[in-house]
Every structure is written in C-alpha cells, then in structure tokens.
C-alpha cells in the first residue's frame, strides 16, 4: 500500500509495513509484524486484543514514544519513523495527546497546572497558558475544581483533567490507553461520552481497550493478534 505524502491526505496517521522487534538477551520478540493501516482524519478507532498482541506497542509507536524497527510511519503526511529523540519529543509536544488508564497527573500540582503543563513546554506565558487551561477545564466540566490537587478528585474527574491536558496542545491524534480501566462503569460511560463529543468535534481518536462495551463507542474496531492485524470492522 502506498500513500502519497500530501498535505491534504485524508489520513491522520499511516503505518506502512511497520515492525517492532524487541531483543531481550538472546530472544527476539516480534511485537509488531509488518503492520500496515491508515487512520482517517476525524475517525474514532478502538484497538482490541489479548495482552501481548501488540496493541500497546502500536499505541506507543503511534504516540511517537518509540521508533519502529522497520517500516514507515506517516503522521499528517510527515515521515516520523526515523526521527531522533528530540524531534520525537517535539512531535509529541505539538501533535499528540495522551490519555492513560491511571490518569498520570502530577500529584503535587493543581488541576490548572496539570492542564497547562504541555503549554509550559511549548513556552507559553503563564497567564496565557492558565487562561487556556481554564477554558479546557470548562470544556470537560471541571471549572469548579481548578485549584484542587488530583488526590482531592474522583477517578472520573481525574480522567477529565487528563483529557483536558491531552487537548491543551490541540493535537492531531488523541491516544487513549484503557481510559476507563480504572473507573466504574457509569463513570466510564461518561468519559466515553466525552470522547465521542471530541470525535464529533473533529478529533482523531485511537483507543486501546479490551472491553467490547467500550470499544463499541468507536466507529472502527481493530483486533490485534500476535503482532498482526487479525480483523477490522467498521
């Protein structure tokens, strides 16, 4: 499969023959085996699969936290598969938003500071970044909690903060790793509703989950097995 390097490509992220091989001492583990797939702009994907199927590796590669062993990864038409650590950091800073299972907020910082963190690294002035943080907090329904610390919030509220932080840099893709895994089902559904709203607003979302019920919120489902794509359903 060949995709043109065009600015107006309809695809946000494209994997071309991506492989990821880990060497652990003597043994070589092939976490991804020549995977090719394109994620369209504004689509909502759920990646499913058993543990060790390669779904986490896929998410790490999509999020530029890691480099593929071979193959090409085009993010908004730009080949990012051979970039060095600094450039990958730059891509993450500008184009990627992460949502984690365990929220991953800075425990000593307030809600406002957590949301503004990506803007700090982008070099924003504090006043501007906090005003954007307040705007994003309002968007996820947390205007009343700006000065609180994560430990003073419920799980659902913490995940909302994480989502607001992921949106701070206005990313190309929102990557979610089991976003409801640490939440009760009602709260999980609320978070999924929020993600759906974001998708409707035009965000590209790729989510890893093992729960069928949660995966059902996505438009497309991808099932991984032994480092290969086992099935795709739309």
């Amino acid at each position, binding site marked *: 499969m060949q995709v043109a390097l065009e600015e107006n490509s309809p695809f946000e992220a494209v994997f071309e023959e991506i492989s990821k091989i880990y060497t652990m001492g003597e043994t070589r583990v092939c976490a991804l085996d020549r995977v090719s797939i394109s994620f369209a702009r504004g689509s909502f994907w759920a990646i499913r699969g058993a543990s060790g199927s390669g779904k986490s590796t896929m998410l790490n590669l999509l*999020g530029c*936290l890691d480099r593929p062993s071979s193959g090409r990864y085009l993010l908004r038409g730009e080949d990012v598969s051979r970039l060095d650590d600094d450039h990958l950091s*730059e891509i993450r*800073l500008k184009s*990627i938003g992460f949502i984690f299972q365990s929220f991953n907020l800075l425990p*000593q*910082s307030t809600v406002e500071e957590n949301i503004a963190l990506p803007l700090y*690294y982008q070099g924003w002035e504090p006043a501007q970044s906090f005003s954007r943080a307040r705007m994003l907090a309002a968007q996820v329904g947390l205007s009343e909690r700006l000065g609180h610390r994560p430990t003073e919030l419920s799980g659902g509220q913490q995940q909302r903060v994480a989502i607001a932080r992921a949106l701070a840099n206005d990313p190309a893709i929102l990557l979610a790793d089991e976003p409801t895994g640490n939440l009760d089902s009602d709260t999980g559904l609320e978070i999924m509703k929020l993600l759906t709203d974001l998708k409707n607003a035009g965000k590209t979302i790729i989510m890893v989950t093992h729960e069928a019920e949660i995966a059902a919120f996505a438009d497309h489902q991808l099932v991984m097995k032994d480092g290969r794509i086992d099935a795709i359903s739309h």
Partner: protein
Amino acid sequence: MLLNIRHLREIKSGVKNLLQHKLRSSLTMLGMVFGVGSVIAMLAVGEGASLEALNQIKRLGSNNIIISSQKPLEEETQQTTRSFMSIYGLLYDDEVRLASGFRHILRTVPVKIVRQSGRLGERAIDLRVVGTVPDWFRLVQRPLIAGRTLSERDMLQATNAVVLTEYGARRLLATRNSLGQHVKIGGEYFEVVGIVQSESGQGTGLQAPDQQIDAYIPLKVARERFGDVTTRITSGSRTRELVELHQIIVEVDATAFVESTAAGIEAMLVHFHKKNDYQIAVPLALLRQAEATKRTFNIVLGSIAGISLLVGGIGIMNIMLASVTERTREIGIRRAIGAKRRQIILQFLIETMVLSTTGGIFGILIGLFIPWLITLVVGMPTVVTSLSLILSLGISMMIGIIFGLYPAVRAAGLDPIVALRHE
C-alpha cells in the same frame, strides 16, 4: 549549561517543585547549610588567630632587625664557679660598625638594659631601665601621652631625664602632676620629662622591643651611673656579668634589603665575636613564617570544612537520586507530553542548584553568626573575609551542578514508556 534570564521560568518552576516538598528540601539543604557555615566559620577563626600574631610581628617593625646579647651556652654551665665574671654580648663598637658599615641601614639604636627599682616617695616599682638614644622613639613608635621624648641635648649633656610608660607613671606618680617629678632610680634622681603609651603585648613568645615597666634614659647616663657590670645574687651564688649593650635595633631603608642586610650583619658579628653571644631576630622573616603557618592553618581548616561541604553535596546527590526514582512516573509523564531530554536535565539540575545555592546562602548566615558568637562568648578575634564568602557560595553552586548532573542525566535517560509504567 549556562543559566541566564531565559531560564527564569525553569528556576521558578524548580522553586515551586521544591516548595511542594518542603521537609525533604530543607533536610537536603541542611548538609549544605552546615558545610558552608563551617567553612566560613573555620576560616574566620583561623584568620582571626593568625591576624593577631601577624599584628604582633608587624609591631616589631618589618623593616627592623633586632640584635640581642645572649649569654653563651658554655658560660651558662660555668656559672657555679665563684667570683667568675662572664663577659659577653654586643659591644659599643658593634653599634659604631653597624652604623657606618652598611649601605641600607637607616639608623641604629643601641639599647642598654639595667634592672633597677624606681622610687617616688613611698611608692616603688621594679623598672627595666632602658639606656638608649632619641632614635628609639622613632623605631618603637608609641603615642606620646605627655611631655617629650629624649632629645639630642639629653644625650650630649647626659641629663638625668627619664621617659616613663603610662603604666609606670600610673604606678609611681599616681595623682600627682606627672611631669617634672623626680624619680629615684638606683641611687640617682631622674626628672620625668615625658610619658609614652605602654606596650600591652601579651601572649605570643614574640616580644616587642619595649615593655610596660620601661624607663627610658640617655644611653650615656645609663653607662655612667650604672656601669656595664651587673651583679646578681641568686640563692647564695653570685654571678657577675659584663655586658656593654643588650640590644641593637637596626632599621633598614627598604623591606627588600632586610634579609640581605641581616646576613651581612651576621657575617660581621661572626668576624668580631669569638663566642656565639648574640642573636639576630628578623621580624620580616618571622612575618613570612607566620604567614606560611597561617596558610597551612587555613589549608587544614579549609580541608576539614571542605569535607563537610563534600558530605553535604553527596547528601544532595543522594536525595536527588532517590527523588529521580520516586519521580520516575513524573518524568515519564513529562516526557510523554513532549519534554525533551535536556529539559528534564535542566529541571533536575536547577532543582539541585536552587537547593545548594539556597543552602549556601543560609550557610553564609550561619557562617557569619558563629564567628560573631565565638568573639562574643570566648573573646577570640575572628575575621570573616569576603573571599571566604564568595568562595563558599561558589563552591556550593558548583556542588549543585556536579552532584546534580548525575541524577539529572539518569532521570533524562529513562525510557518514557518504562517510566510511565513505573509504580
């Protein structure tokens, strides 16, 4: 990595991070505080102690050479022989030879010392009667309290004039009008013509040429009235000594020639004296020696204090390393969000530098306080030099960089994926 105004934001953020862990930060800082404090305090004590010694030597005059008569060792042992008279010491001729024979000698002051009791009415005091010349008062500069010093006319006319020290004047004259009184020294009456301030030198073995019990009279008078022979009776045995001059103080015109002149004097005296009956003291040499001692002293104290600084630095590194482990998750989050390696390095480095520099500043306060306390309580002189302040603050900042670098590099080297999974 240079810190400049662009990093103000990082510094602010670092300070904020540290303030979020107040207890940990202040405990980490403690090593630095006491390290820097002890460096400054120790150097201040050392500096104060040596300063006093140096001042004492300087009072002897760094351009002076002091030649003193010394009883030769062999005669010391023959003392038991009855009616033996030991003849030794500097000669009147020596002074003449010194005054005329050396290019760089500015003036020579011969000194003849006689122990006599001074008496005024019912009051008495043991005096060290110093027979000397007017130049004495130029070499041994002490403020004149009343009257005048000895004059050339006193020399020529061999007047019975005496200059007392403040101490002697107080003991002898009490409340009476001091000047013009006639004090009986030995068998003679001397008119008090002036009073100079006493030398209050105590402690150190280095003696200033003058003492507080001095009474200065013209050399010629001392020679005529008291003679050159001293008879001393100690526990039944009589010792008689013939000493012409007890001291010759020489002033050299420039510091650069002091040591060569001293060598020349030595050579001359060796030639004219068969016995080793004199001693040459060069305050400048003592000064150099004292300065060398002071340097050694400072090095020793400095290294002890330096070790405590090192320990403080290792403490900081230890905590920062623990903190890297503890904050692995945080580092992973920051990296995932898009922080570059060097931003993580900078963050940790700034935190250690803020810690060590703040510790250094508190250390300086302690370092200023301890010497002040020592001076207040023990009365020991202490001198806090600005060099020690700058040095220890500089060292504490350096320690922040050196001991912060390793934890910072380790933190930045973490794989973000692994760091994020860290519990």
